[in-house]
């Protein structure tokens, strides 16, 4: 099977037909498919045969895990990295405020997606992985190990954004669109596609990211100790930073293993590509929210 990374339609056919699908839609000036060609294949128009070769090359891979990592790094840590990541190096308060509010909506969906993946599979290694994820992201393990979500709320509070304000907030439109896309992809597609959509995003904060070619990390680790951010913010960011590095790639190994078994590597590539596009906008929403919160307080 082949899936379109833009409209997610599944075609019972080859990469060549996917390329034809894009070719036909650019002739009709379809904005979403044209933007995708511009971003991932190139801005210069080719003929239909050449486009087919470019598509074959773009999707060809021996390892889905490595393909996901390299495409993720290129998109978010390329030259230059995403604006949110640039702002995170030595974050001003507005960045962390926006992060606190929008990420609440992200995490709320995150655990639902984990649950959808559990309900879509019989594989116990996958279920165990997702259960563990739900506990660490949302539920926590007693007072000594608060969840990632709880640490996020504490970061917000330390910057003057109350948990009440966070709970009462509506996600910004870009966050809402992203959340809806993740909800659909994890619920309606195979569990391995759901995992490719969600867990690939954890790469953003991976400590290994520089090993994969990024020119900087998610933030400059010096901020965890130099007093430039609140202690609560340092606790929130430090938790991810100090997490077991090997663990962060467990999901990618599971995705690679099951996509091989289920022979749906290209479908996983497509949902991953869709997911990083909405994630791109979502990261911008964190910045926009931060600017909004800053304006309100002045």
């Amino acid at each position, binding site marked *: 099977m082949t899936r379109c990374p833009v409209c997610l339609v599944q075609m019972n056919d080859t990469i060549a037909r996917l390329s034809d699908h894009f070719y036909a839609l*650019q*002739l009709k*000036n*379809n*904005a979403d498919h*044209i*933007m995708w*060609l*511009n*971003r991932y294949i190139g*801005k*210069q*128009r080719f003929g239909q045969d050449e486009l087919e070769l470019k598509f074959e090359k773009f999707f060809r891979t021996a390892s889905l895990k490595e393909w996901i990592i390299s495409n993720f790094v290129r998109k978010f840590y390329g030259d*230059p990295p*995403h*604006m949110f990541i640039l702002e995170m190096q030595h974050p001003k308060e507005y960045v962390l405020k926006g992060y606190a509010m929008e990420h609440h909506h992200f995490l709320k969906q995150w655990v639902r997606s984990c649950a959808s993946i559990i309900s879509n599979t019989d594989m116990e290694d996958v279920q165990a992985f997702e259960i563990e994820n739900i506990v660490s992201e949302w539920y926590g393990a007693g007072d000594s190990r608060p969840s990632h979500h709880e640490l996020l709320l504490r970061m917000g509070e330390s910057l003057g954004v109350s948990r009440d304000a966070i709970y009462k907030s509506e996600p910004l*439109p*870009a966050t809402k669109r992203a959340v809806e896309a993740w909800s659909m992809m994890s619920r309606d597609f195979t569990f391995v596609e759901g995992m490719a959509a969600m867990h690939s995003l954890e790469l953003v904060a991976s400590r290994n990211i520089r090993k994969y070619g990024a020119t900087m990390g998610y933030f400059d680790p010096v901020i965890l100790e130099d007093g430039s951010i609140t202690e609560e913010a340092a606790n929130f960011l430090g938790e991810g930073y100090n997490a077991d590095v090997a663990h962060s790639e467990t999901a990618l190994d599971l995705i690679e293993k099951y996509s091989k078994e289920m022979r749906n590597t290209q479908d996983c590539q497509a949902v991953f590509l869709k997911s990083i*596009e909405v994630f*791109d*906008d979502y990261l*911008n929403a964190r*910045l*926009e929210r931060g600017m909004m919160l800053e304006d309100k307080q002045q």
Partner: protein
Amino acid sequence: MKTNNSEGCALCNATWGEYWREIDGENMPFCCNICADIFQEMVRRVKENTGWDKIDYINLEGNYSKGRNCTATNGDRKYSYYFRTYSDGKFITFEER
């Protein structure tokens, strides 16, 4: 109005797609309606900020992810600015530079 993107889309220079829209009485080429929307809103903001009644030329450098640094020209007057949008064309930032 002309831009430095002479090969294709007036905003991004892509040669995929072919979408025309009238901007300030002139028919201009774009790759898609989102680029046209962004361009139209950009022109509106430039005119609003400068008070100009026309723009002769716009030089655009950058891309969708890092944003675009631009200089608009009207006769011998120049206005430099930076902007960035979401993928649906909604503006995140527009500022004089």
